[in-house]
Protein backbone atom coordinates (compact mmCIF):
# COMPACT_ATOMS: atom_id res chain seq x y z
CA UNK A 1 0.00 0.00 0.00
CA UNK A 2 3.05 2.25 -0.02
CA UNK A 3 2.57 5.35 -2.13
CA UNK A 4 -1.21 5.31 -1.91
CA UNK A 5 -3.16 7.70 0.21
CA UNK A 6 -5.69 5.51 1.97
CA UNK A 7 -8.39 7.51 3.60
CA UNK A 8 -8.74 5.10 6.43
CA UNK A 9 -11.31 7.09 8.30
CA UNK A 10 -14.56 5.09 8.13
CA UNK A 11 -12.95 2.35 5.98
CA UNK A 12 -12.86 -1.14 7.47
CA UNK A 13 -10.18 -3.72 6.80
CA UNK A 14 -12.30 -5.59 4.24
CA UNK A 15 -12.93 -2.36 2.32
CA UNK A 16 -9.21 -1.60 2.19
CA UNK A 17 -8.39 -5.14 1.02
CA UNK A 18 -11.02 -5.04 -1.70
CA UNK A 19 -9.78 -1.62 -2.80
CA UNK A 20 -6.22 -2.94 -2.98
CA UNK A 21 -7.36 -5.89 -5.14
CA UNK A 22 -9.20 -3.50 -7.44
CA UNK A 23 -6.18 -1.24 -7.67
CA UNK A 24 -4.04 -4.21 -8.70
CA UNK A 25 -6.70 -5.37 -11.12
CA UNK A 26 -6.81 -1.93 -12.76
CA UNK A 27 -3.04 -2.13 -13.07
CA UNK A 28 -3.43 -5.39 -15.05
CA UNK A 29 -3.32 -8.14 -12.39
CA UNK A 30 -5.86 -10.70 -13.63
CA UNK A 31 -5.41 -12.90 -10.56
CA UNK A 32 -6.36 -10.02 -8.28
CA UNK A 33 -9.45 -9.36 -10.41
CA UNK A 34 -10.53 -13.00 -10.24
CA UNK A 35 -10.04 -13.06 -6.46
CA UNK A 36 -11.95 -9.78 -6.15
CA UNK A 37 -14.97 -10.96 -8.12
CA UNK A 38 -15.12 -14.25 -6.23
CA UNK A 39 -14.96 -12.37 -2.95
CA UNK A 40 -17.79 -10.11 -4.04
CA UNK A 41 -20.22 -12.99 -4.64
CA UNK A 42 -21.11 -13.73 -0.99
CA UNK A 43 -21.11 -10.02 -0.14
CA UNK A 44 -23.55 -9.28 -2.95
CA UNK A 45 -25.67 -12.32 -2.11
CA UNK A 46 -26.03 -11.05 1.45
CA UNK A 47 -26.90 -7.59 0.16
CA UNK A 48 -29.54 -8.94 -2.23
CA UNK A 49 -31.01 -11.15 0.48
CA UNK A 50 -31.33 -8.16 2.81
CA UNK A 51 -33.02 -6.11 0.06
CA UNK A 52 -35.18 -8.68 -1.68
CA UNK A 53 -35.43 -11.69 0.60
CA UNK A 54 -35.00 -15.22 -0.69
CA UNK A 55 -36.16 -15.04 -4.29
CA UNK A 56 -35.70 -17.29 -7.27
CA UNK A 57 -34.43 -14.26 -9.23
CA UNK A 58 -31.56 -13.50 -6.86
CA UNK A 59 -29.06 -15.41 -8.99
CA UNK A 60 -30.05 -13.39 -12.07
CA UNK A 61 -29.81 -10.11 -10.17
CA UNK A 62 -26.45 -11.15 -8.72
CA UNK A 63 -25.12 -11.81 -12.22
CA UNK A 64 -26.53 -8.47 -13.42
CA UNK A 65 -24.80 -6.73 -10.52
CA UNK A 66 -21.47 -8.46 -11.23
CA UNK A 67 -21.76 -7.54 -14.89
CA UNK A 68 -22.53 -3.92 -13.97
CA UNK A 69 -19.55 -3.80 -11.59
CA UNK A 70 -17.34 -5.18 -14.36
CA UNK A 71 -18.60 -2.69 -16.94
CA UNK A 72 -18.12 0.25 -14.62
CA UNK A 73 -14.83 -0.95 -13.11
CA UNK A 74 -13.03 1.98 -14.72
CA UNK A 75 -14.95 4.48 -12.59
CA UNK A 76 -13.61 3.23 -9.27
CA UNK A 77 -11.08 5.58 -7.77
CA UNK A 78 -8.92 3.83 -5.20
CA UNK A 79 -8.95 6.88 -2.96
CA UNK A 80 -12.60 6.27 -2.17
CA UNK A 81 -14.38 3.48 -0.36
CA UNK A 82 -14.71 0.38 -2.56
CA UNK A 83 -17.76 -0.96 -0.76
CA UNK A 84 -19.63 2.32 -1.12
CA UNK A 85 -18.88 2.22 -4.87
CA UNK A 86 -19.88 -1.41 -5.18
CA UNK A 87 -23.08 -1.09 -3.17
CA UNK A 88 -24.12 1.99 -5.18
CA UNK A 89 -24.02 -0.15 -8.31
CA UNK A 90 -25.73 -3.12 -6.64
CA UNK A 91 -28.47 -0.85 -5.26
CA UNK A 92 -29.01 0.57 -8.75
CA UNK A 93 -29.43 -2.92 -10.21
CA UNK A 94 -31.85 -3.85 -7.41
CA UNK A 95 -33.95 -0.78 -8.19
CA UNK A 96 -33.83 -1.67 -11.89
CA UNK A 97 -35.12 -5.13 -11.06
CA UNK A 98 -37.87 -3.83 -8.78
CA UNK A 99 -39.01 -1.32 -11.42
CA UNK A 100 -39.33 -4.11 -13.98
CA UNK A 101 -40.86 -6.48 -11.43
CA UNK A 102 -43.66 -4.15 -10.39
CA UNK A 103 -44.42 -3.37 -14.03
CA UNK A 104 -44.82 -7.08 -14.69
CA UNK A 105 -46.83 -7.68 -11.51
CA UNK A 106 -49.50 -5.31 -12.81
CA UNK A 107 -50.38 -7.81 -15.56
CA UNK A 108 -50.42 -10.94 -13.36
CA UNK A 109 -46.99 -12.39 -14.16
CA UNK A 110 -47.80 -15.64 -12.35
CA UNK A 111 -50.84 -16.27 -14.55
CA UNK A 112 -48.57 -16.95 -17.50
CA UNK A 113 -47.29 -20.22 -16.06
CA UNK A 114 -50.45 -21.80 -17.44
CA UNK A 115 -49.22 -20.86 -20.94
CA UNK A 116 -46.58 -23.57 -20.52
CA UNK A 117 -49.29 -26.24 -20.30
CA UNK A 118 -51.05 -24.92 -23.35
CA UNK A 119 -47.86 -24.78 -25.39
CA UNK A 120 -46.84 -28.30 -24.42
CA UNK A 121 -50.34 -29.75 -25.02
CA UNK A 122 -50.42 -32.39 -27.79
CA UNK A 123 -52.05 -31.52 -31.10
CA UNK A 124 -55.28 -33.48 -31.66
CA UNK A 125 -57.85 -33.65 -34.43
CA UNK A 126 -60.41 -32.02 -32.21
CA UNK A 127 -59.64 -28.32 -31.97
CA UNK A 128 -58.44 -27.78 -28.42
CA UNK A 129 -57.04 -24.88 -26.45
CA UNK A 130 -53.49 -26.19 -27.12
CA UNK A 131 -53.95 -25.71 -30.85
CA UNK A 132 -55.41 -22.26 -30.27
CA UNK A 133 -52.30 -21.26 -28.32
CA UNK A 134 -50.08 -22.76 -31.01
CA UNK A 135 -51.84 -20.56 -33.56
CA UNK A 136 -51.52 -17.52 -31.32
CA UNK A 137 -47.82 -18.23 -30.90
CA UNK A 138 -47.36 -18.36 -34.67
CA UNK A 139 -48.62 -14.81 -34.85
CA UNK A 140 -45.82 -13.59 -32.58
CA UNK A 141 -42.59 -12.31 -34.11
CA UNK A 142 -40.06 -15.08 -34.43
CA UNK A 143 -37.70 -13.83 -31.74
CA UNK A 144 -40.55 -13.42 -29.23
CA UNK A 145 -41.81 -16.91 -30.04
CA UNK A 146 -38.35 -18.39 -29.47
CA UNK A 147 -38.02 -16.56 -26.15
CA UNK A 148 -41.41 -17.86 -24.95
CA UNK A 149 -40.54 -21.44 -25.90
CA UNK A 150 -37.09 -21.26 -24.31
CA UNK A 151 -38.35 -19.75 -21.04
CA UNK A 152 -41.60 -21.62 -20.57
CA UNK A 153 -41.08 -24.98 -22.28
CA UNK A 154 -37.33 -25.50 -22.08
CA UNK A 155 -37.23 -23.77 -18.67
CA UNK A 156 -34.20 -21.59 -19.38
CA UNK A 157 -33.65 -18.60 -17.15
CA UNK A 158 -33.69 -15.12 -18.65
CA UNK A 159 -29.89 -14.92 -18.36
CA UNK A 160 -29.47 -18.21 -20.24
CA UNK A 161 -31.84 -17.12 -22.99
CA UNK A 162 -29.97 -13.82 -23.27
CA UNK A 163 -26.67 -15.63 -23.65
CA UNK A 164 -27.99 -18.00 -26.30
CA UNK A 165 -29.68 -15.29 -28.33
CA UNK A 166 -26.98 -12.66 -27.89
CA UNK A 167 -29.30 -10.23 -26.14
CA UNK A 168 -29.17 -8.41 -22.83
CA UNK A 169 -31.10 -9.93 -19.93
CA UNK A 170 -33.37 -6.93 -19.62
CA UNK A 171 -34.16 -7.07 -23.36
CA UNK A 172 -35.15 -10.75 -22.99
CA UNK A 173 -37.42 -9.97 -20.05
CA UNK A 174 -39.07 -7.07 -21.85
CA UNK A 175 -39.61 -9.19 -24.99
CA UNK A 176 -41.04 -12.06 -22.91
CA UNK A 177 -43.36 -9.72 -21.05
CA UNK A 178 -44.66 -8.23 -24.30
CA UNK A 179 -45.19 -11.67 -25.78
CA UNK A 180 -47.17 -12.80 -22.73
CA UNK A 181 -49.28 -9.67 -22.86
CA UNK A 182 -50.06 -10.34 -26.52
CA UNK A 183 -50.96 -13.97 -25.83
CA UNK A 184 -53.15 -13.01 -22.91
CA UNK A 185 -54.94 -10.37 -24.96
CA UNK A 186 -55.52 -12.80 -27.83
CA UNK A 187 -56.65 -15.59 -25.48
CA UNK A 188 -59.15 -13.50 -23.50
CA UNK A 189 -61.90 -13.14 -26.19
CA UNK A 190 -61.64 -16.88 -26.97
CA UNK A 191 -62.05 -17.82 -23.29
CA UNK A 192 -65.06 -15.54 -22.99
CA UNK A 193 -66.61 -17.23 -26.05
CA UNK A 194 -66.01 -20.69 -24.61
CA UNK A 195 -67.53 -19.63 -21.29
CA UNK A 196 -70.68 -18.53 -23.14
Amino acid at each position, binding site marked *: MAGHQWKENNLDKEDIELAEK*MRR*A*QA*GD*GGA*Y*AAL*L*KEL*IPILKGFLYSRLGNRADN*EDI*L*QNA*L*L*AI*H*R*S*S*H*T*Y*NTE*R*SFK*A*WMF*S*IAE*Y*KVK*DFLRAHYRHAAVGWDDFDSVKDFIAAPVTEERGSGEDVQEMLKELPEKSRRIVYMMKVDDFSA*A*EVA*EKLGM*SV*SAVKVAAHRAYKTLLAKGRPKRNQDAD
Partner: protein
Amino acid sequence: MQTEELVQQLVAQGPKKRWLHPGKAALGLLAFMLVYYGLIVGFSNFRTDLAVKFKEPLYLLEVGCAFLSGLTALFAANWLALPDVGQRPHIRFLPFLPLGALLGLQLYMMSPLSWDALYECLKLELYMPTVRIMLYGLFPAAIVFFVMEKAAPIRCCWAGSMAALAVACFGYILLRLTDGMDDPMRVAMWYFMPVGLMAVVGMMAGGMTLKRVWR
Protein backbone atom coordinates in the same frame (compact mmCIF):
# COMPACT_ATOMS: atom_id res chain seq x y z
CA MET B 1 -25.35 -19.49 -17.04
CA GLN B 2 -23.84 -20.19 -13.63
CA THR B 3 -22.35 -17.29 -11.71
CA GLU B 4 -18.92 -18.96 -11.68
CA GLU B 5 -18.95 -19.17 -15.49
CA LEU B 6 -19.85 -15.49 -15.68
CA VAL B 7 -17.00 -14.62 -13.32
CA GLN B 8 -14.58 -16.57 -15.53
CA GLN B 9 -15.78 -14.68 -18.58
CA LEU B 10 -15.43 -11.33 -16.80
CA VAL B 11 -11.93 -12.20 -15.57
CA ALA B 12 -10.97 -13.18 -19.13
CA GLN B 13 -12.12 -9.74 -20.34
CA GLY B 14 -10.28 -8.04 -17.48
CA PRO B 15 -11.23 -4.75 -15.79
CA LYS B 16 -11.18 -1.53 -17.76
CA LYS B 17 -8.38 0.95 -17.21
CA ARG B 18 -9.15 3.65 -14.69
CA TRP B 19 -11.20 6.54 -16.00
CA LEU B 20 -10.18 10.19 -15.58
CA HIS B 21 -10.60 11.79 -12.20
CA PRO B 22 -13.81 13.87 -12.49
CA GLY B 23 -11.90 17.04 -11.64
CA LYS B 24 -9.48 16.45 -14.52
CA ALA B 25 -12.33 15.61 -16.89
CA ALA B 26 -14.09 18.83 -15.88
CA LEU B 27 -10.95 20.90 -16.44
CA GLY B 28 -10.48 19.35 -19.86
CA LEU B 29 -14.07 20.12 -20.78
CA LEU B 30 -13.69 23.66 -19.43
CA ALA B 31 -10.67 24.22 -21.66
CA PHE B 32 -12.62 22.91 -24.64
CA MET B 33 -15.59 25.18 -23.91
CA LEU B 34 -13.40 28.24 -23.45
CA VAL B 35 -11.82 27.60 -26.85
CA TYR B 36 -15.18 26.87 -28.48
CA TYR B 37 -16.99 29.90 -27.10
CA GLY B 38 -13.86 32.00 -27.61
CA LEU B 39 -14.00 31.17 -31.32
CA ILE B 40 -17.66 32.16 -31.47
CA VAL B 41 -16.86 35.43 -29.75
CA GLY B 42 -14.04 35.95 -32.24
CA PHE B 43 -16.52 35.62 -35.13
CA SER B 44 -19.26 37.66 -33.43
CA ASN B 45 -16.97 40.38 -32.05
CA PHE B 46 -17.19 41.80 -28.58
CA ARG B 47 -19.75 44.47 -27.85
CA THR B 48 -18.41 47.95 -28.58
CA ASP B 49 -18.86 49.20 -25.02
CA LEU B 50 -17.17 46.24 -23.32
CA ALA B 51 -14.34 48.32 -21.86
CA VAL B 52 -16.92 50.58 -20.21
CA LYS B 53 -19.00 47.63 -19.00
CA PHE B 54 -15.98 46.04 -17.33
CA LYS B 55 -15.78 49.06 -15.06
CA GLU B 56 -19.29 48.34 -13.74
CA PRO B 57 -19.12 46.16 -10.63
CA LEU B 58 -22.59 44.68 -11.17
CA TYR B 59 -21.74 43.63 -14.70
CA LEU B 60 -18.51 41.99 -13.54
CA LEU B 61 -20.37 40.29 -10.69
CA GLU B 62 -23.01 39.03 -13.11
CA VAL B 63 -20.47 37.55 -15.53
CA GLY B 64 -18.45 36.18 -12.61
CA CYS B 65 -21.49 34.43 -11.10
CA ALA B 66 -22.40 32.98 -14.48
CA PHE B 67 -18.85 31.70 -14.93
CA LEU B 68 -18.82 30.15 -11.45
CA SER B 69 -22.21 28.55 -12.10
CA GLY B 70 -20.93 27.03 -15.33
CA LEU B 71 -17.69 25.87 -13.74
CA THR B 72 -19.33 24.25 -10.71
CA ALA B 73 -22.03 22.68 -12.90
CA LEU B 74 -19.30 21.14 -15.04
CA PHE B 75 -17.61 19.68 -11.96
CA ALA B 76 -20.93 18.46 -10.62
CA ALA B 77 -21.77 16.82 -13.96
CA ASN B 78 -18.50 14.89 -13.99
CA TRP B 79 -18.89 13.77 -10.37
CA LEU B 80 -22.47 12.75 -11.10
CA ALA B 81 -21.12 10.60 -13.95
CA LEU B 82 -19.72 8.26 -11.28
CA PRO B 83 -21.92 5.57 -9.68
CA ASP B 84 -20.78 6.41 -6.14
CA VAL B 85 -21.50 10.12 -6.24
CA GLY B 86 -23.07 9.51 -2.82
CA GLN B 87 -19.53 9.70 -1.45
CA ARG B 88 -19.54 13.41 -2.40
CA PRO B 89 -23.24 14.27 -2.00
CA HIS B 90 -22.79 18.02 -1.64
CA ILE B 91 -21.23 18.43 -5.08
CA ARG B 92 -24.52 18.27 -6.98
CA PHE B 93 -25.83 21.25 -5.00
CA LEU B 94 -22.74 23.39 -5.49
CA PRO B 95 -23.84 25.10 -8.74
CA PHE B 96 -26.96 26.43 -7.05
CA LEU B 97 -24.89 28.78 -4.91
CA PRO B 98 -23.52 30.99 -7.70
CA LEU B 99 -26.72 30.43 -9.68
CA GLY B 100 -28.75 31.68 -6.73
CA ALA B 101 -26.44 34.67 -6.47
CA LEU B 102 -26.95 35.37 -10.16
CA LEU B 103 -30.71 35.13 -9.76
CA GLY B 104 -30.56 37.47 -6.78
CA LEU B 105 -28.51 39.90 -8.80
CA GLN B 106 -31.05 39.79 -11.66
CA LEU B 107 -33.89 40.46 -9.24
CA TYR B 108 -31.96 43.29 -7.62
CA MET B 109 -31.25 44.91 -10.98
CA MET B 110 -34.91 44.53 -12.00
CA SER B 111 -36.26 46.08 -8.82
CA PRO B 112 -38.71 47.54 -8.31
CA LEU B 113 -40.47 44.78 -10.22
CA SER B 114 -43.44 45.92 -12.25
CA TRP B 115 -45.92 43.45 -13.70
CA ASP B 116 -46.67 45.84 -16.55
CA ALA B 117 -43.01 46.02 -17.46
CA LEU B 118 -42.83 42.24 -17.26
CA TYR B 119 -45.81 41.91 -19.57
CA GLU B 120 -44.32 44.40 -22.02
CA CYS B 121 -41.08 42.46 -21.97
CA LEU B 122 -42.91 39.21 -22.72
CA LYS B 123 -44.67 40.82 -25.65
CA LEU B 124 -41.33 41.60 -27.24
CA GLU B 125 -40.91 37.86 -28.01
CA LEU B 126 -37.14 38.11 -28.22
CA TYR B 127 -36.58 34.44 -28.93
CA MET B 128 -33.25 34.83 -30.70
CA PRO B 129 -31.09 34.86 -27.53
CA THR B 130 -32.81 31.67 -26.39
CA VAL B 131 -32.29 30.07 -29.77
CA ARG B 132 -28.65 31.19 -29.82
CA ILE B 133 -27.92 29.80 -26.36
CA MET B 134 -29.46 26.48 -27.37
CA LEU B 135 -27.85 26.24 -30.80
CA TYR B 136 -24.39 27.30 -29.63
CA GLY B 137 -24.73 24.87 -26.76
CA LEU B 138 -25.61 21.80 -28.83
CA PHE B 139 -22.07 20.84 -29.78
CA PRO B 140 -20.43 21.34 -26.36
CA ALA B 141 -23.39 19.62 -24.72
CA ALA B 142 -22.90 16.63 -27.02
CA ILE B 143 -19.22 16.50 -26.07
CA VAL B 144 -19.97 16.71 -22.35
CA PHE B 145 -22.64 14.01 -22.63
CA PHE B 146 -20.23 11.83 -24.62
CA VAL B 147 -17.60 12.12 -21.90
CA MET B 148 -20.14 11.39 -19.16
CA GLU B 149 -21.46 8.33 -21.00
CA LYS B 150 -17.97 6.85 -20.88
CA ALA B 151 -18.23 6.84 -17.08
CA ALA B 152 -21.17 5.13 -15.32
CA PRO B 153 -23.79 7.61 -14.17
CA ILE B 154 -26.56 6.41 -11.91
CA ARG B 155 -28.22 9.75 -11.34
CA CYS B 156 -28.66 10.31 -15.05
CA CYS B 157 -31.23 13.11 -14.84
CA TRP B 158 -29.14 15.11 -12.39
CA ALA B 159 -26.01 14.56 -14.47
CA GLY B 160 -27.75 15.64 -17.68
CA SER B 161 -29.21 18.68 -15.96
CA MET B 162 -25.81 19.80 -14.66
CA ALA B 163 -24.17 19.27 -18.04
CA ALA B 164 -26.81 21.37 -19.81
CA LEU B 165 -26.64 24.01 -17.06
CA ALA B 166 -22.88 24.32 -17.54
CA VAL B 167 -23.22 24.75 -21.29
CA ALA B 168 -26.08 27.24 -20.92
CA CYS B 169 -24.14 29.35 -18.42
CA PHE B 170 -21.27 29.72 -20.87
CA GLY B 171 -23.79 30.60 -23.57
CA TYR B 172 -25.17 33.26 -21.23
CA ILE B 173 -21.68 34.72 -20.78
CA LEU B 174 -21.20 34.70 -24.56
CA LEU B 175 -24.34 36.75 -25.07
CA ARG B 176 -23.43 39.20 -22.34
CA LEU B 177 -20.04 39.75 -23.96
CA THR B 178 -21.34 40.17 -27.51
CA ASP B 179 -24.88 41.56 -27.28
CA GLY B 180 -25.54 45.14 -26.34
CA MET B 181 -28.82 44.42 -24.54
CA ASP B 182 -28.59 45.65 -20.95
CA ASP B 183 -32.18 46.11 -19.85
CA PRO B 184 -32.28 43.99 -16.63
CA MET B 185 -35.75 42.63 -17.29
CA ARG B 186 -34.91 41.60 -20.84
CA VAL B 187 -31.64 40.05 -19.70
CA ALA B 188 -33.44 38.11 -16.96
CA MET B 189 -36.25 36.95 -19.24
CA TRP B 190 -34.45 36.24 -22.52
CA TYR B 191 -30.94 35.36 -21.37
CA PHE B 192 -31.27 33.94 -17.87
CA MET B 193 -34.52 31.97 -18.14
CA PRO B 194 -33.27 29.95 -21.12
CA VAL B 195 -30.45 28.79 -18.82
CA GLY B 196 -33.07 27.23 -16.54
CA LEU B 197 -34.95 25.86 -19.53
CA MET B 198 -31.83 24.18 -20.85
CA ALA B 199 -31.20 22.62 -17.45
CA VAL B 200 -34.65 21.04 -17.64
CA VAL B 201 -34.05 19.84 -21.21
CA GLY B 202 -30.70 18.44 -20.08
CA MET B 203 -32.43 16.57 -17.28
CA MET B 204 -34.72 14.85 -19.78
CA ALA B 205 -31.89 14.16 -22.20
CA GLY B 206 -29.75 12.73 -19.39
CA GLY B 207 -32.52 10.39 -18.33
CA MET B 208 -32.79 9.05 -21.87
CA THR B 209 -29.19 8.84 -22.99
CA LEU B 210 -26.76 8.34 -20.11
CA LYS B 211 -27.61 4.77 -19.16
CA ARG B 212 -25.72 2.94 -21.91
CA VAL B 213 -23.08 1.44 -19.69
CA TRP B 214 -25.77 -0.40 -17.75
CA ARG B 215 -27.41 -2.04 -20.78
